[in-house]
């Protein structure tokens, strides 16, 4: 089994990917804890699982569909009711830097 460990830099990268603005102190704290946790969960790699299919769903059901029929929507007021900021019946969000 490979020696599993995670560096502070990797934790900083994970925080960015996860959109978590962590302080340096938090990064230090989490780096230690995550290192310990990852070391523990890496035990799954001890299991001989060659040829074993992954299980993504607890119950083996397939083909659950809905009919293409309209159902009632929320009103714009309901849709926007929890929004931190709105304008022109839309969700107002801070400027977006990158195009997707």
């Amino acid at each position, binding site marked *: 089994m490979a020696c599993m460990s995670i560096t502070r830099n990797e934790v900083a990268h994970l925080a960015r990917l996860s959109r978590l603005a962590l302080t340096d102190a938090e990064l230090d704290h989490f780096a230690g804890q995550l290192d310990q946790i990852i070391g523990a969960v890496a035990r799954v790699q001890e299991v001989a699982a060659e040829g074993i299919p992954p299980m993504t769903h607890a119950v083996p059901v397939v083909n659950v569909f809905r009919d293409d029929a*309209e159902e009632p929507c929320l009103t714009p007021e309901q849709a926007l009711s929890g929004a931190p900021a709105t304008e022109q019946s839309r*969700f107002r969000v801070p400027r977006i830097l990158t195009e997707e």
Partner: protein
Amino acid sequence: MTQVAALVAYDEAIARYEPVIGLETHVELGTATKMFCGCPTRFGLPPNSAVCPVCLGLPGSLPVANRAAIEYTIRIGLALNCSIASWCRFARKNYFYPDMPKNFQISQYDEPLCTDGWIDVTVEGQTFRVGIERVHLEEDTGKSLHVGGATGRIHGADYSLVDYNRAGIPLVEVVTKPVAATGALAPVVARAYVTDLRDLLRALDVSDVRMEEGSLRCDVNTSLAPYGATEWGTRTETKNVNSLRSVERAVRFEIERQAALLDAGQRVVQETRHFHEDTGATTAGRSKEEAQDYRYFPEPDLVPVAPPPEWVDEIRASLPELPAARRLRLQGEWGLTKLDMTALANAGALDLVADTVAAGASPADARKWWLGELARHANELGVDLSTLSITPAQVARVSELVASGSLNDKLARQVLDAVLAGEGDPDKVIEARGLAVVSDDASLLAAVDAAIAAKPDVAAKIRAGKTAAADAVVGAVMKATKGRADAARVRELILERLT
């Protein structure tokens, strides 16, 4: 990287490098409701009125797949000669973006619904087989309005306003395999592929395929390699190319730009680029700070899709006549060559001609009007033929009036112009403008006699047997009747009078 790109003349670029293209086309399906909820997909609804907890991604909400969207996707896959997966799953594509309510998109990753198909595309009499890598199903995002800043564009905006009516609309992505060996025709092949795909989707009745409304959007990949190279060049991905013409222009521009880089010994950067309609150029997209890692994993809120073979067979049996087969049939019925048909298709006139024939015109007349007068008109306006404000039925009516002698070609052109100008149906135009051919001999004879009297010298020549001189009198009569006379009949009357 915003400096103006150096370009190499297209012919030179093609002389030195072989282009390879690839296309990723997104199509909004024309289902009545969204992919995972019962909200309507109609355009033009007030902002955030076609939303519910599911498509707003509210905490606790769960998706349920729309059966019709699955069926439409299978229909597309079958029409593109794909294999239909016997078992596949949706996956989550994770990235943060304000127009995406859950900050992940439900898509398909390594298990698309349809794989490994093809479509034949004919350009200038040559047929190219475009391989289809995959056809998969995903959900669309919301739409943002960018407020403030100089341009209303995303860059420099102060903030954005998001409307989630489009979020969750079923979106099919059709991805081609790399298309090589098209040489100088690469841009035209790219355009013809998108045209054919659009026609196919329309025939399948799965989407309204309106590029201008964004229901069909293209990303175009282009790479160049020196002839004989063993590896393909680095590709660029040009995003959101939103008209057929732009597809062709974008590929052409990228070939010219990449050739200049390679000529200068520089490397092509693998990147996303944006096409600009106004200049026909592409520019580098703003590169993200970190490489994207979408962390795909199977969507746990949806169960696998395992289309039963009987269902797939049923869908296959219900496929309508597809454009390629229809083209072959019409070619036979109309007695045209393959090249004629290609020209019709490339002009976007095939359906218009077919509809005009169906409305009663002869195939030859229908072709003549659409590829002649009407194509000229569309060119002048710089629009597609299909967007002209004239219907195949109106063209067929004009054609019928010409055939019956009520209109001559010149009058017919005037009628068409008037219809295009919004003056109403052909019959209404003819009545309002008094454009019908003058067909009673009595009125014509009066005009003929007046013309003869006005040109005694010409009349003398005709009497002397020089019947060719009659043309001058015919011209005078046509002028006097403002073109409403039947020139052949006028000539007959002149000769009767003078010989």
